[in-house]
């Protein structure tokens, strides 16, 4: 029994140390310092005191905090801008955010907390699984939900849920169409991660869509997360098959290795990626010259030169001290899309949450929004966005529009 107690105490100590560390290691602690009480920070009463209450949910702590903070910060920035410009339909907007720790259970708890606060419209959740879990509750409460970045198909299963980003399968379709429309290649090779839902989902739709296009898929090779270090076999197959474009529906870490290895075997096709490729220029020990000429389909590039993007990047950097990523852009657009939809139906904050939801559901299929992630966005009743994919080419270490 004594020995048993020793074992127990050893485990308890380690558990507590883990808990302490989990509490302390917060990669995004710098980004949230000025938002302890977001509800009060943006609170300002309009003439008759009524305000719209918009809530956001995302992982603000833990491993995925980069995404959650990007979404919550950008939404906050948008709300502050809207309030400064006179609000929506003359009413000010209150904003609050809650942490879900990338945990579906906590995400529902976060939703309930926001509901108690009086939330009328939800921007979130940031990640797919959490968004699906929360949509069950928003459906039951008939609350309007616009997820900036929940890309899994099931996220918009209910009619009260819409999204800003492309769905995973849609990226595959859009990529195939872009390659065909711009005559980028005749023979295409694919390298994808079969252990990842995002990657295999895109690859599947790309393959289906490519059947009746003007190019041919000559090799389709998979890897898994466990052997994502050596790609020479996959590259050799694409090279032997004569592929002049290699489609990489994968995240940038693996893509950087592929580019390096293709260079050593002197294989120089066009590399074409999707939004997971965003970030390749910031990989450590990666020679960015190798990324020269890589094309990627991404909704947002922080280096774009249009006024909207330049202003957004400048304000975001001033306020939060970092360059915004595509999650931030999606969330920023989400708030402005809600504004436009609310204005289209002249919604007022004294309406019930359910009535606001019904009005917004109707408005979403009618409006045509323009924002950071696309100049023209419309929505199906299913919740899927229709927008032109933006392609960029990497030139001299920076994104340049491919058009």
């Amino acid at each position, binding site marked *: 029994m004594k020995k048993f107690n020793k074992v127990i105490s050893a*485990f308890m100590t380690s558990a*507590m140390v883990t808990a302490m560390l989990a509490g302390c290691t917060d990669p995004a602690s710098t980004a949230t310092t000025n938002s302890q009480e977001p509800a009060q920070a943006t609170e300002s009463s309009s003439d008759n005191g009524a305000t719209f209450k918009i809530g956001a949910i995302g992982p603000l702590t833990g491993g995925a905090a980069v995404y959650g903070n990007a979404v919550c910060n950008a939404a906050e920035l948008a709300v502050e801008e809207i309030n400064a410009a006179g609000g929506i339909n003359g009413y000010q907007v209150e904003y609050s955010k*809650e942490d879900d720790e990338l945990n*579906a259970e906590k995400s529902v708890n976060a939703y309930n907390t926001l509901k108690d606060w009086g939330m009328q419209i939800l921007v979130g959740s940031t990640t797919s699984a959490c968004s699906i879990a929360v949509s069950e509750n928003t459906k039951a409460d008939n609350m309007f939900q616009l997820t900036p970045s929940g890309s899994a198909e099931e996220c918009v299963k209910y009619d009260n849920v819409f999204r800003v980003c492309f769905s995973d399968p849609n990226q595959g379709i859009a990529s195939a169409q872009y390659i065909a429309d711009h005559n980028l290649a005749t023979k295409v090779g694919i390298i994808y991660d079969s252990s990842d839902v995002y990657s295999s989902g895109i690859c599947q739709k790309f393959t289906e869509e490519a059947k009746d296009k003007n190019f041919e898929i000559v090799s389709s090779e998979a890897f898994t997360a466990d052997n994502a270090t050596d790609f020479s076999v996959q590259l050799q197959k694409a090279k032997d098959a004569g592929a002049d474009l290699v489609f990489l529906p994968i995240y940038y870490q693996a893509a950087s290795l592929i580019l390096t290895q293709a260079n050593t075997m002197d294989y120089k096709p066009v590399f074409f990626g999707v939004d997971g490729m965003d970030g390749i220029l910031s990989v450590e020990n990666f020679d960015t010259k190798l990324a020269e000429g890589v094309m990627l389909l991404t909704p947002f590039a922080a280096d774009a030169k249009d006024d909207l993007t330049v202003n957004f990047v400048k304000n975001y950097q001033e306020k939060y001290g970092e360059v915004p990523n595509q999650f931030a852009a999606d969330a920023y657009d989400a708030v402005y899309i809600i504004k436009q939809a609310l204005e289209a139906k002249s919604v007022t904050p004294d309406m019930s949450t359910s009535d606001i939801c019904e009005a917004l559901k109707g408005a979403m299929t009618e409006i045509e929004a323009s924002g950071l992630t696309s100049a023209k966005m419309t929505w199906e009743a299913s919740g899927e966005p229709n927008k032109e994919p933006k392609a960029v080419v990497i030139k001299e270490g920076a994104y340049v529009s491919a058009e």
Partner: protein
Amino acid sequence: MHMDKKTKDNLITYGIVIAAFLVVEVLAMTGKLSSHMGGLLVPMTYYAIIAVALNLCVGILGELSIGHCGFMCIGAFTSATFSKVMADKIPSGPRFFIAFIIGIAVAALFGFLIGIPVLRLKGDYLAIVTLAFGEIIKNVINAFYIGVDSKGFHFSMENQMALNLESDGTMIINGAMGITGTPKDANFMIGIGVLLISLVIVLNLINSRDGRAIMAIRDNHIAAEASGINVTRYKMLAFTISAAIAGSAGVLYSHNITTLTASSQYFGYNASIMILVYVVLGGIGNIRGSVVAACILYLLPELLRGLNKYRMLIYSIVLIVMMIVNWSPKVIEWRKRTFANFGFKKKVKVVK
């Protein structure tokens, strides 16, 4: 009426659970229950249930298991698979009941199978093997792709495309994405019901002939064997029951939230340790303590939401303080002295 001490003690435990249920129901009916609290009720019951299950394993059987969330994971996935397939074919009441039977049975089966090799080990070795088991379950489920269409079930461990589903087919388990769209059948009343049933099973087991044999093995393995107790049989009995109860917690879990993924934050090492924290803080071998500790420790970080990131730090500090208050010999002595002045003299004597 004469009632022995143990029966009285057990009745207090049931009483606390039922009282908590009634208080919440009254609050809910008068509209005083916030939706935040309302959403926490079902999770509280399933964490209390798995804490009871783990306490049976750790406190009564005396074997440290740190893979109990693995059993919860099995219960969750098997029952959710059943419910998803049968969603339109069976009305929700009987469907949920059968889901419970399936989840509990499969978890118990795995408890039995894993118990055969594992229970030959002791102490640290057993802890490490249970840890490995929990991780294996998680990783295997992450590699499963199961779909169903007009031709029947399709199964693959490669990827979704290898299933060759018809266009009308639906995915049941989609690899790392897990199961989405499980019907939300769980509610607080069912949760409390399952908690009460597990309490009845565990408390009666402890006070039975079998329970005394199990505790004899815990206290002195050799002496128990020498007295003719079938050590393997009783160890298996306790471990399997513990796994089955953990499975029922999994069934509640998967029918409370519509996304179910076998990722580490729900069923991994940390989650299992979390349950162990509930058990240790509530008192090893003290079933009532496990229930109370699970509820308090689950509620705490949620109630501290207003403190943003600091809640993680405060939570850790509270754990340390609770540990000291509950288990430090000096504090226990001080508590005894203090409470002795409040008319608890009789009880103190019994303890001494």
